[in-house]
């Protein structure tokens, strides 16, 4: 168990921003909210999955919405507390611990904010080992954990609780439309799980991993060594590309930031081009010519992470723009997302790329995302 410090938050924001594969919400906003709470005297403990009692009650907390809106429409501040309280009132029980739904810039930190405000511990784990755009894309729900009850709130004070849903695809459909009506920003707390389920179906130690990635980047900056090497040393995986963004097409559609980008290779990648398609998160990366996608070099569920070449700072979807110098890393995902059942939900076909074959990146036992 560790108690979150301001310095930890600095690192988690960077690490979660990188592991968020372009989505998960803006890390900077998440960071300053958490650091302000810590300076005000709030505290939050991060506990290991193994420290959780079998019958402890756990809920995920996180924001939903288009990241392109999230950078402009700021939260009121107490949404995750209200969402959790609504969930607790609905079931008539207290939640014992909070878990991240995903590792992503803001959504790794929002649960910490909730934990601090409500004096509840946050688990060192999440339900993806990365970020994903849709609710059914969760190791919990893929493993059969019920996605309800689910509480959804907005900054205006509106509140909706789903008591029962046919499945997590249905929950995604209902919640996404309502999120758009709420102004493309809402906060959810769901479901009510027991410790045993959470231990069995979550991705372990991802908050620690995010912190380690952030620590590595910050250290490398300080001593002026390779930030890419520093990250890959923690996460395993490879550098896929380095270059300059020369084209970005992005639209906020149905509550998502959808689009594609092209990067022109620099240094050893000169003459090559990289194409990435995204839906909040980066989905598929191809190498090719300026206008053609010749070869898939990485795809979901593996992670395609973009850093600013100079600073190692993670680049999120809403920040993409012409001229940015970027380095793209491929990081192997958790084994929990590589099963046949999981691939139906989070493989390339589920995102509209049935022609893309998922070739899992090699993993090293005991390192990276478990």
């Amino acid at each position, binding site marked *: 168990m560790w108690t979150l410090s301001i310095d930890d938050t600095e690192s988690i924001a960077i690490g979660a921003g990188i592991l968020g594969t372009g989505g998960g919400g803006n890390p900077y906003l998440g960071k300053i909210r958490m650091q302000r709470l810590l300076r005000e005297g709030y505290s939050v403990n991060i506990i290991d999955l193994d420290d959780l009692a079998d019958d402890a009650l756990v809920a995920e907390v996180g924001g939903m919405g288009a990241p392109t809106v999230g950078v402009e429409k700021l939260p009121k501040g107490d949404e995750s507390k209200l969402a959790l309280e609504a969930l607790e009132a609905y079931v008539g029980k207290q939640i014992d611990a909070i878990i991240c739904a995903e590792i992503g810039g803001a959504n790794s930190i929002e649960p910490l904010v909730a934990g601090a405000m409500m004096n509840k511990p946050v688990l060192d784990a999440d339900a993806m080992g990365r970020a994903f755009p849709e609710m059914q894309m969760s190791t919990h729900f893929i493993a059969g954990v019920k996605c309800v009850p689910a509480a959804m709130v907005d900054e205006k004070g*509106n509140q909706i609780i789903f008591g029962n849903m046919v499945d997590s695809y249905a929950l995604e459909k209902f919640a996404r439309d309502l999120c758009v009506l709420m102004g493309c920003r809402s906060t959810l707390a769901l479901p009510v799980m027991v410790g045993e389920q959470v231990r069995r179906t979550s991705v372990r130690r991802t908050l620690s991993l995010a912190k380690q990635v952030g620590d590595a980047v910050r250290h490398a900056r300080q001593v002026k060594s390779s930030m890419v090497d520093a990250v890959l040393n923690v996460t395993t995986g490879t550098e896929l590309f380095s270059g300059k963004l020369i084209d970005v097409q992005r639209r906020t559609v149905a509550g998502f930031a959808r689009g594609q980008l092209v990067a022109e290779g620099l240094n050893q990648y000169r003459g090559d081009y990289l194409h990435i398609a995204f839906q909040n998160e980066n989905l598929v990366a191809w190498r090719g010519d300026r206008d053609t996608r010749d070869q898939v070099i990485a795809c979901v569920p593996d992670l395609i992470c973009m850093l600013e070449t100079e600073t190692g700072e993670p680049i999120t979807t809403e920040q993409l723009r012409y001229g940015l110098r970027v380095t793209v890393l491929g990081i192997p995902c958790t084994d929990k997302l590589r099963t046949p059942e999981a691939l139906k939900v989070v493989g390339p076909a589920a995102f509209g790329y049935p022609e893309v074959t998922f070739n899992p990146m090699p993993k090293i036992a005991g390192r990276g995302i478990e």
Partner: protein
Amino acid sequence: MTKRQIGVQEIEDIALGAAVLGTGGGGDPYIGKLMATEAVRRHGPVELVTLDEVGDDEMSVAIAMMGAPTVMVEKMPGGNECVEAFNAVQSFLGRPIQYVYSIEAGGINSTIPITLAAQLHKPMIDMDGMGRAFPEIQMVTQSLFGITATPFTMADEKGNSAVLSTIDNRWMETFARNIAVNMGATAHIAAYAASGKQQKEAAVYGTLSLAEKIGRTIRESRAAHVDVIAALREVTGGFIVFHGKLVDVRRQTVAGFARGEAILEGIGEDAGSQMSIQFQNENLMASRNGEIVVSVPDLITMVEEDTGEPITTEQLRYGFRVLVLSIPSHPHWRSAKALEVVGPRYFGYDIDYVPVEQRFKA
């Protein structure tokens, strides 16, 4: 006032009268009637009380179906949705609810609560929240008098359910409508729970018994072969605004509503003239030769010229010979505040509301 019972014959009459009050919308009464009839046959008749018999502290909740009438005629309910919705409100409020009421006695929502009341052996109150049908959730007199729709519970036939709590009733319409569309354009709801004291101030009194009286009048007039239309006009206090044949209907199901226009070619005294009736589930505006002659909140209903059978939006088709009947709205709907909610401007017509009785003679 004495207590009454809603049995099979009453349901028959209520469904018919409610279709008149439904102003073209409110859902096909036939399906609601079948369900309610089956429920009272199985569970016994439903007790109907008047508001003065309800204790100030006793609670009532409105039960309804929400969605597009064009879908309701095809997608049948499962049967248990209203019970779930009712139980969810009771649970959320943390106190028992003694009465069930209709939020909208125009259309299917006159009989949907009867089905639930029978299933749960609860009495109904002779009232509603509109005195007619309206397309949106905040268009109820309870809302005008400050009663919140929260907690608003929804359930569908697949097992999906939700409870909504919003900062005002207009937000409730926005979210609930979207959920209803995603439930397949029909959903069962329980909402606007209120105390006897609140209802005594806010409700439209006597709408269920009025619907029953209208239906009985039509039925008895037909059986006696007397002028159904004249009897209908008298029992409703309404005005015959046009006599014509339907020559064109445009209708689209959009965002959970059936929107469109019906064009009538004049017959008899109205020969040579044309009437256009615009609807959004319910009939909103009636224009004669391009000039608006009746508008919301007054009621506009088309009835078949011989039988007096009211015609719903989804039943409209070429060749029907109809009389357009307009009934003055309940006084609650005529205040400046009410007209902001249900007047012509809310629906996009930049005209001032003129009560039908100022334009037409009985």
